[in-house]
């Protein structure tokens, strides 16, 4: 496959009623929106995965709705949680049973590099036993990070790019708020900009809006 980026505009119908594209680009476009997932959930990250897959964060928005509990019907393997040495043959077998084309996501620090299980029990990252496409760091990752990972994977599928990618963390919005010099009303702090007496204050303003 070519490594050239695919522009989605080529897939939109023009005024003449047809579109032109390359076959591999069309296949990539079709594959990225029809991911059938096999969740290999082994540990606490599974709670976050449930959140990602359920309606609040809603993986289905991105065309990755249907979980398949047979690896033969799946093309995206989510490795969610710690993989012990004893489970490694099982994971390898599951991966080998999946049909091509197939992709693998390492969900969480343990699946990515073993995490703090730096000992005799744990595989130090699933990339030691199977190829891995996306690493989602976090202990556990936020659901947004998992969605970022899915979008990153879809981008890679569309481009036919099999080099592994790491999800970059988003900035925590609360960090910014906590460092705000005028204090943080959300956390119960009183803004310093309120005049001592009389005049409209931020608090009374919001009261008026509510009534």
């Amino acid at each position, binding site marked *: 496959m070519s490594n050239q980026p695919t522009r989605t505009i080529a897939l939109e119908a023009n005024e003449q009623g047809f579109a032109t594209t390359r076959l591999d680009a069309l296949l990539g476009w079709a594959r990225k929106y029809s991911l059938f997932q096999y969740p290999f959930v082994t540990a606490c990250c599974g709670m976050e995965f449930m959140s990602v897959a359920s309606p609040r964060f809603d993986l289905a928005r991105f065309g990755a709705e249907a979980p398949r509990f047979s690896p033969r019907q799946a093309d995206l393997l989510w490795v969610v949680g710690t993989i012990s040495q004893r489970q490694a043959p099982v994971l390898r077998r599951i991966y080998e049973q999946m049909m091509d084309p197939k992709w693998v996501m390492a969900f969480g620090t343990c699946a990515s590099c073993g995490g703090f299980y730096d000992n*005799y029990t744990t595989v130090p990252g699933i990339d030691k036993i199977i190829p891995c496409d996306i690493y989602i760091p976090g202990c556990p990752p936020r659901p947004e990070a998992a969605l970022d990972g899915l979008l990153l994977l879809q981008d890679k599928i569309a481009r036919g790019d099999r080099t592994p990618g790491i999800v970059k963390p988003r900035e925590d919005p609360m960090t910014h708020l906590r460092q705000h010099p005028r204090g943080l009303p959300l956390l119960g702090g009183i803004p310093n900009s309120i005049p001592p007496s009389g005049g409209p204050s931020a608090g009374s303003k919001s009261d008026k809006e509510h009534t």
Partner: protein
Amino acid sequence: MTVRVLDKLKERFGSAILETHSNFGDDTALVAPASWKEICTFLRKDPQMDFDLIIDLCGVDYPHRAETNERIEIVLHLCSLPKRARLRLKTRVGDEELNGAEVDSVTHIWPGANWFERETFDMMGVKFRGHPDLRRILMYPEFEGHPLLKDYPAARTQPLVQYRNEEEAGLPLEKIAPFREDEGMSFGRNVWNSADENN
């Protein structure tokens, strides 16, 4: 109540009770390994004792005690629901090479001891005489050695699946997954395939 259990044990078994103490309500008796089963049977069957519940059984490795054949300490926690008493029973077995690290199984007294003894065998290498099914319970049968002994190398792994190497993966493996401080938890991953170096 609590001190009386220890007194009763000392009275009945005499020199087989090597040491007792009772701090903050924790009764502990260190007993000779040869009398292990006899004492346990007494604690279970005697109507005054009636320790009917096994809480835990585990092992502790003390390498500096290996010279006196006391390397592995087996710790048994018991509870008596009718008498509302708790008791900790200890015994010490085994030398440097775990010779003589054997003690009678208490599975026939408390069936719940079955998996605890298997775990202690798996992690510490203590053999329990008369155990109905003394196999590894946590580690796989191919595993060599006993991982919770102090002389087991901390970084030694025994993978069941051959790890991929970089030629097979087609890319530098170690560059991928280490995360920076701000990218989640950062951990050293010097373990993978360092098993050979550390052995």
